[in-house]
């Protein structure tokens, strides 16, 4: 349950020879920069998991934390909507067992515990490194169709508030964010400031090579990253 200082997250990964940050570490890093995330905390035991779940409030989501297991849901390492303490104990044991079963050699740090996010419109945002322009920020509607439709907008980091405004309005799916067919609109201003904050975060952390916030849930009351993934640059 110990929290590492934000800058320690990257250092620790470096010390351990890792370039991929765990969801827990990635979110900690993002949260320390003021980027809204559904905070995830690591529980090494079922007791710790229950204490954390009691703290954030039910229902909760539990996810496996292991440097070797990157596709968490594929191995049965994710259980959502856990309603109470009893459920948390069962889910904890199930996830640990599933992880060991999937990869007996994997080091499993435990299970991350987070509250279930309020549902919203699914957004994907992130950063990739371009050979000519350096870090490039992406924004689009998330969900299963994103890879087919490629309805995404890009800007080179650093961006200004004007750029965030434009990129959100540039995607074909923008009317979805304004609310269609009685659906509630998303808090577009919250998305704009998320993008500007993310740009500043990327500027401040040049060691980051890739970043995905996928999904971000955008609702009427704000925008919050539900899952996060950060990859550090290989060291020369």
């Amino acid at each position, binding site marked *: 349950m110990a929290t590492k200082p934000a800058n320690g997250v990257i250092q620790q990964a470096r010390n351990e020879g890792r370039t991929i940050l765990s969801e827990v570490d990635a979110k900690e890093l993002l949260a320390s920069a003021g980027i809204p995330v559904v905070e995830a905390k690591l529980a090494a035991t079922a007791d710790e998991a229950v204490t954390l779940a009691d703290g954030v409030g039910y229902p909760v989501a539990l996810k496996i934390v292991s440097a070797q297991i990157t596709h968490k849901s594929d191995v049965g390492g994710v259980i959502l909507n856990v309603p109470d303490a009893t459920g948390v104990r069962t889910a904890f044991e199930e996830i640990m067992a599933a992880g060991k079963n999937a990869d007996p050699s994997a080091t499993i740090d435990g299970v991350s515990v987070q509250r279930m996010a309020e549902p919203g419109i699914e957004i994907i945002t992130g950063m*990739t490194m371009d050979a*000519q*322009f350096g870090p*490039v920020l*992406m924004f689009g509607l998330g969900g299963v169709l994103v*890879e087919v439709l490629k309805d*995404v907008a*890009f800007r*080179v980091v650093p961006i200004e508030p004007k750029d965030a405004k434009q990129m959100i309005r*540039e995607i074909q799916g923008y009317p979805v964010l304004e609310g269609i067919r009685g659906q509630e609109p998303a808090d577009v201003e919250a998305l704009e400031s998320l993008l500007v904050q993310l740009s500043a975060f990327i500027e401040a952390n040049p060691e980051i090579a890739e970043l995905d916030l996928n999904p971000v849930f955008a609702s009427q009351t704000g925008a919050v990253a539900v899952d996060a993934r950060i990859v550090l640059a290989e060291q020369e």
Partner: protein
Amino acid sequence: MSELKANLARALSPKTVVVVGDKRMNGYMWLRNMQPFSGAIYSVQVDPNEIPGIEEMGVTNYTSLADVPGDIDYVLCAVPRQISPRIIADCAAKGVAGVALFTSGFAETGEEEGAQLQAQIGEIAREASMALIGPNCMGVYNAKLGIRQSGEQPTGEAGPVGFISQSGTHAINFSLTGAAQGVRISTSISMGNAEVLDVADYVDYLTDDPDTEVIAMYVEGTKDGRRLLQSLKRATARKPVVVWKGGVTEGGTRATQSHTASLTSSMAVWDAVLKQAGAIETLSMDDTIDVLKALLFCKPAKGRRMGLMAMTGGQSVVITDAFERAGQVVPRLTDGSYAKLAEFFNIIGGSYQNPLDMGGTIGFGGQHDHLQKLLDILDEDSNVDAFAMELASGFMARRWQADPSSLDTMLDLLVKHRERSEKPFVLTLHPGHVEEVTAQARAKVVERGLPVFHSFERAARSLALATDYWLRDT
């Protein structure tokens, strides 16, 4: 200003020019290109077989750059690649401000020797803060001073367009095709392999150049994208920038696992950069020239609502589709306009809802008082921000051929209208079935400084892109 920037400025506005290595085999191309130059021009050539031909042109030849009298601002170097490091070193020793290296066979070959030679000349130039343009380029075109990349380029007054091109062919074709349509160059730089100076350096120069009102460029890639973005932003705050992006880089792609990376293509990033910079992105040379015509020959539009003037019903439909597809709007006119139109508009075979299907009303170009009234009505109509008119080559070309003055009179009327009106006004003239006649007609329109496009679609797209720029802060 850094020494390199100061040297570039000298090289692009030279007082003394030297051509190194010009040859009979090329028809002494470079010395001929510089013939209109008003300043001092010298040749450096060691080959005794070449020197008489050079001297016959009235140019003083030296066998060493060191012997050339006075300061040298611009050297055009056309020696074989193995000799080029020595000549570049001579230039550095002489304190030459800038050298354009026509010679090719460097990094663009993809082979080791070429890359090494390029690195070598780059190092010599950087060491001396000398403005090395290229290698593998056609150098500089300064219309006012008579420095050229091709003997066909017009000289005299500076035009308003600064041009940067990664390709020598595009630099020359753009200047010639553009000039034929009234789009003239201030300074054009063929930047070739961009060993020392990159796109951003030339953008910076043209941003500060008082003769350049609009910057346009053909660009394939850059070594420093972030610096280019900063330079483009600085430029667009002062003048419009039009970017014709060619090619997609392979270096930008690499295998990654993240969604963001898999959704990012190099072209998508360029699109984003140009939007972020507030530049206008074009798709071809013609597209670039078209947008420049709208930017240069139209007063800025305050909106997207079009008044359209066509000769027939069929064209009225198609011109409307073209403008609406391009993102412009074709609204109803005001009731006041309709009342005025009802007084004289010939509705037998015509209509005036907008578009004005006006062939019968203006006697197919013969009834100038009616044409004048239509222009005035659209100009005063508060629902109209800009207007477009068809010069109907399909059935007018033979009449213009038979009676050239009929076209002249109409065009003079349009020029007067354009001077009075604050709204953008564009013309379309399709090449049609008698291109030699429409070509003459087009030349007459261009001569008068009116923006004329080859099709409704091209007029619509260009005006829409220019309008994006005019309305960028709204």
